[in-house]
């Protein structure tokens, strides 16, 4: 499974179905549309840290890095490189 698809699946599974339209695009604005509440956000961060062994710092937690699936995937790739 591609990184984008894995992230999409995770985001859907953490209980965002009610707030994210079905089949949302990889450019769907997760932060701007308030699709991620604090609990979902923390779950996502924990998932990134545990599944991709990325250690995130305070400076990484910006709306820009989590703006959409596309942006988030790029961010994760940059940290894995």
């Amino acid at each position, binding site marked *: 499974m591609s990184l984008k698809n894995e992230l999409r699946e995770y985001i859907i599974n953490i*209980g965002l179905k009610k707030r994210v339209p079905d089949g949302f695009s990889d450019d769907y604005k997760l932060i701007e549309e308030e699709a*991620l509440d*604090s*609990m979902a*956000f*923390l*779950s996502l*961060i*924990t998932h990134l840290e545990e599944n991709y062994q990325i250690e*995130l710092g*305070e400076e990484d*937690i*910006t*709306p820009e890095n*989590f703006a959409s699936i596309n942006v988030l995937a790029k961010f994760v790739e940059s940290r894995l490189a």
Partner: protein
Amino acid sequence: MLLRLSSVIPYGPGSSLLSFLFRSKVFRKLFCRPRAEWVRGFLDAVESKVDTEAAISQSLVSCKAVAWRLTAISRADDESKKKWVHVDGSQHLENAYREKKRLIVIGSHQGMARFVPQLMSHMGYPIHALAVGNFYNGLDLPEWKRISILQLGESSFFAKDVFVALKAIKSGKVFHMMADGVQGKAALEFPLVDRRRGFTKSYAELALLSGAEVIPVFTRIELSGLIKVIFCQPLDNGTEEMTTEDRVSLMVRQYVSLLSDEYRQDPASVHLSHIRKFLNYPRAEKDGD
């Protein structure tokens, strides 16, 4: 300046002086008429049997000269601290912290609530406290120099605050926050005594994500100045079979039930700003209505 001058007054004599002042009918009539009306209304609302005049005096103790109290108790010797600060339930803290090293302590706006992080730091716990405003900035408290502070609202991105809190808990710090705040999003509604209001759920969410226990703490203060700190048993966080939403709701419901008991048992310790808000909340529907 006033705080600096008053900080040389030891806790015992200072408390006696304030107690004398706050008992005085003349003082209360001159300076505290609106407060007295609010407290009277509140005692009626929670159907409290405590003496009204004593409650008004105690209400003043809860809210006035807090900065002086924090400073004076910090400077007091061990014997005075033992005399003026009674702690119940510290074994709940010890057990929870020893077992998991992941702990959230939730306070409420009553009594000497601001004293709790200072007390726990004095007890040897590494503390990360959520703070609103700059109350502690001007205070010379050695305990606070050891406490990390998460200033709520300082970050423009909501997720940064919760991320910092999560990291602090996972690193073994005891995270302290207020659970009955009226700022920000009130996420879950439960009846507080007989009124309906929203409560934050962030501590419950943080607890489930980090695997931390949540311990409520109540801090009464008597007219004499005696501070009683009561650490409760950890909140029941449900089972793995339950949904996260249900587990969060279970925890917040337990806290609100404890807070309701506290409102009934010691109404005079509830801070005036919360008394005023309480009296303006809509009545909760009774079961079966």
